[in-house]
């Protein structure tokens, strides 16, 4: 964008970028630096030795995998239906679904708490997974439907002429062709479910073994009477899987998140 004719101009721009990036590094540096204060690496040991340390990760993994799987299946079938099948007044269904597109989760809080406690699902994974899925679906369906709209009908007709039923068309034509969408959906839903804080906090509970990764750093606030170094060590450990996943799958993350931002 900016012209860089000389080496010096290029170095100057690099320097400018580096200066502007400093505010981004401060929290990351604080996190790592602070976690090594006091008893040094022993802070990490203390976090790992925390009762039920692995349960934080296990719970987050179960919730994320469950949410991703459900969202993927429901999004693909719904997009297939909306885009390629005959449904009377389908746009009404579609816009009803899109009405939930910008739903703040806090709006659902009171009813969900009452619903979960009355149905006896409070404290189970379902109590978290189902609302998470419900909040993601409008979004992923909107994205996927417009993608599936772009797949020519002729492909499905050809399959039909060859004797493929609706199910075969879905399985053998739509799913392979919509694979690029799958990556975007997985990244988007993974971030949103792994990073969710409010719904697990309220619906899964705050007792030992019922917490998710996002609650890990904050759980030290009471347990160690606000021991900053262990809070920060907890934050590093909780953030690490995401940072590694992002660096490993950089392009997919950037594309998936960008696809989610522009609906």
């Amino acid at each position, binding site marked *: 964008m900016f012209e860089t004719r000389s080496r010096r101009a290029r170095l100057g721009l690099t320097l400018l970028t580096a200066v502007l990036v400093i505010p981004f590094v401060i929290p990351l540096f604080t996190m790592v630096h602070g976690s090594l204060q006091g008893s040094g690496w022993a802070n990490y040991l203390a976090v790992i030795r925390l009762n039920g340390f692995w349960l934080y990760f296990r719970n987050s993994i179960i919730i994320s995998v469950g949410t991703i799987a459900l969202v993927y299946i429901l999004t693909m079938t719904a997009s297939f239906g909306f885009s390629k099948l005959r449904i009377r007044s389908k746009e009404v269904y579609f816009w009803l679904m899109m009405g939930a597109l910008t739903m703040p989760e806090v709006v659902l809080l009171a009813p969900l708490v009452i619903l979960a406690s009355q149905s006896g699902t409070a404290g189970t994974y379902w109590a978290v997974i189902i609302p998470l899925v419900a909040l993601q679906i409008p979004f992923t369906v909107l994205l996927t439907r417009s993608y599936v709209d772009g797949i020519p009908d002729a492909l499905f007709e050809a399959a039909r002429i060859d004797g493929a039923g609706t199910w075969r068309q879905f399985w053998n034509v739509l799913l392979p062709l919509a694979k690029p969408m799958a990556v975007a959906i997985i990244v988007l839903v993974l971030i949103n479910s792994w990073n969710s804080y409010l719904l697990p906090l309220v619906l899964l509970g705050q007792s030992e073994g019922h917490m998710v990764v996002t609650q890990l750093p904050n759980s030290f606030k009471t347990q160690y009477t606000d021991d900053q170094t262990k809070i920060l060590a907890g*934050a590093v450990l909780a953030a690490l899987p995401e940072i590694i996943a992002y660096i490993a799958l950089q392009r997919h993350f950037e594309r998936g998140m960008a696809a989610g931002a522009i609906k």
Partner: protein
Amino acid sequence: MATSVTAAPNKPPIPRRDGGASGRRHQRTPAGLRWILPAFVVCVGLIYFCIGYSGYISVLPWNWRPPRQETVEGFDSYLRAFHSPLFWTSLEHTLVFFLAAFVVQCVMGIIFAALLHSRVYGGTIFKVLIFVPVVIAPAIMAPVHRRVFAVDGPINWILQQLGLIHVTDLGNRVWTEWVSWLLIHLGMGNVTPNWIQPSTSLWVIIAVQIWSSIGMAFILFYAAMGQIDPDLLEAARIDGAGNIRVLVSMVVPNMKPTILALAILNAITALKLFDFPYLITAGGPAHSSEFLGTYIYAELFGVSRHYGYAAALSILLLVLALGVSIVMSVTARERRPVPDIKGRRG
């Protein structure tokens, strides 16, 4: 609504607006209600049930709690909300948050995108550093930010190194003379180098949110800038336009769809905001960083537990969110024909 900004996954292989199922073909298309039903039941069923239930709770007495049986009392809770200064304060914070976050995101997003399109050294490293905050959960970063803005935290340390604050004999941190003179004359005499306080806590939340969302703006602008024809910029340069001129008059006008998308994204974020204010300042001190999310949460799970009142607040928030939703679908229609400079040249 794939604009040209998004990369591959949104670009259908062969663009066709028509979703099929039209005219003669209509008869042969298989029925598909059962294909959309599962998603429809989970999503629309649950969410609309919850909204209906919230609506019902909101007309119960404002201090209603779940096990208690109560009769419908009417719009008492809504009147209470409209008369509550806290409700308006939360709304005002939401608006300030939206405006500040949006403007900074656009300006910094465009600057970063332009810089990283300019052959700087180590571009990937900068890209990762800018985008990593988007990926990490706000709830995980919240305690870190609390540390960053702590009285003895890095922000104050930097200000100290710059000579803006000094430590008194008692160990307190105070502004150096000329800074406090400046602040008093700017009408900000009550700002002390202690950031989680009523006059600054809202700006801490805004700064933290900006930190965690510039990466998103950057990626969107970066993708959009990649679509501008380099020949066009070259032509402008031959006509004698400088770097800044090219950026302001050629690049920024092409960013309009992205800016619009960011405005909507930020409006939604502002309405949904919960994790950062709840975990960094808990909406305080003295409600100075209260947002609708933290307000509703406090009414639901605080000492008082006013389910009826919280439900009324939720319905009001919902109306605002729906407003954004409508704006979004209207502008989405306008946004669709994004000028693709490269393609149109022929």
